């Protein structure tokens, strides 16, 4: 019973900010709404007993990623968007597609079999960090190392992309 109530609370906490984000005109507000949505998703993880993933979600997404977004929003000073897209003709196709996708996925899930409570396991194996560590350093060793390399490559790439551009006089191509 408690689980049910918490589930609906956290589901609302995940979905409502996401909807508001899509409609918000202020980019800083959108970043703040994103934090709430990510914390809602982390709560859903905790409800599913994936505690390590819940902590990671809060630290990486609600922490690092949102801070990075806010930093860029303030660096570029693009906080306010002005009017949202108003042309109705441009709205019809995406909204129709969105509605169709949403209805289809919800129907597909509802018509499917399953959805009973998990059999046999009172405590999820994902509850302990140990089970993650065991898999990461045995079965997924290669993927783990490659992910580390990917982070290094991303870091070098970011430094390369965001370095100060060559002054306009030295550039060979024409100015826009």
């Amino acid at each position, binding site marked *: 019973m408690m*689980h049910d109530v918490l589930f609906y609370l956290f589901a609302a906490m995940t*979905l409502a900010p996401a909807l508001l984000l899509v409609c918000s005109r202020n980019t800083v507000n959108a970043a703040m709404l994103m934090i709430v949505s990510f914390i809602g998703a982390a709560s859903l993880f905790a409800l599913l007993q994936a505690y390590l993933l819940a902590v990671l979600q809060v630290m990486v997404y609600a922490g690092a990623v949102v801070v990075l977004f806010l930093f*860029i929003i303030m660096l570029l000073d693009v906080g306010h*968007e002005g009017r949202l897209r108003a042309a109705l003709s441009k709205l019809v196709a995406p909204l129709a597609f969105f509605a169709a996708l949403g209805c289809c996925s919800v129907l597909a899930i509802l018509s499917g079999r399953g959805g009973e409570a998990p059999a046999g396991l009172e405590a999820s194996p*994902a509850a302990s960090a140990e089970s993650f560590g065991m898999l990461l350093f045995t079965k997924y060793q290669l993927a783990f190392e490659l992910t580390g390399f990917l982070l290094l490559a991303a870091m070098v790439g970011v430094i390369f992309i965001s370095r100060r551009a060559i002054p306009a006089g030295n550039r060979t191509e024409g100015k826009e």
Partner: protein
Amino acid sequence: MLPVALNHYLIVAALLFCTGFAGVLLRRNVIVVFMCLELMLNAANIALVAFSRYNATVERPMMDGNVFVFFVITVAAAEVATGLAIIVALYRRRGTVMADDLTALKK
């Protein structure tokens, strides 16, 4: 025993994905489009964790889905850093982050 069924989590994930998708299609601000992409990744993560939890048995603990979420979070962090660097470079060149104004390839 969990009273809320797997379907409930999957519907939340589907709705979150659709919301993010609508944002990607509708919004003009590239930064907001990027945020909506993160929402879509998040929706996939919720589905993965829910499937892992509800299909786990003592013989098959189904940790692979959870470990996959771990990797998705890591790769998403790298993706956000790279994407935002590209947006900064774009803004320096063009002075805008509105997708409607970035039409260089149309001309």
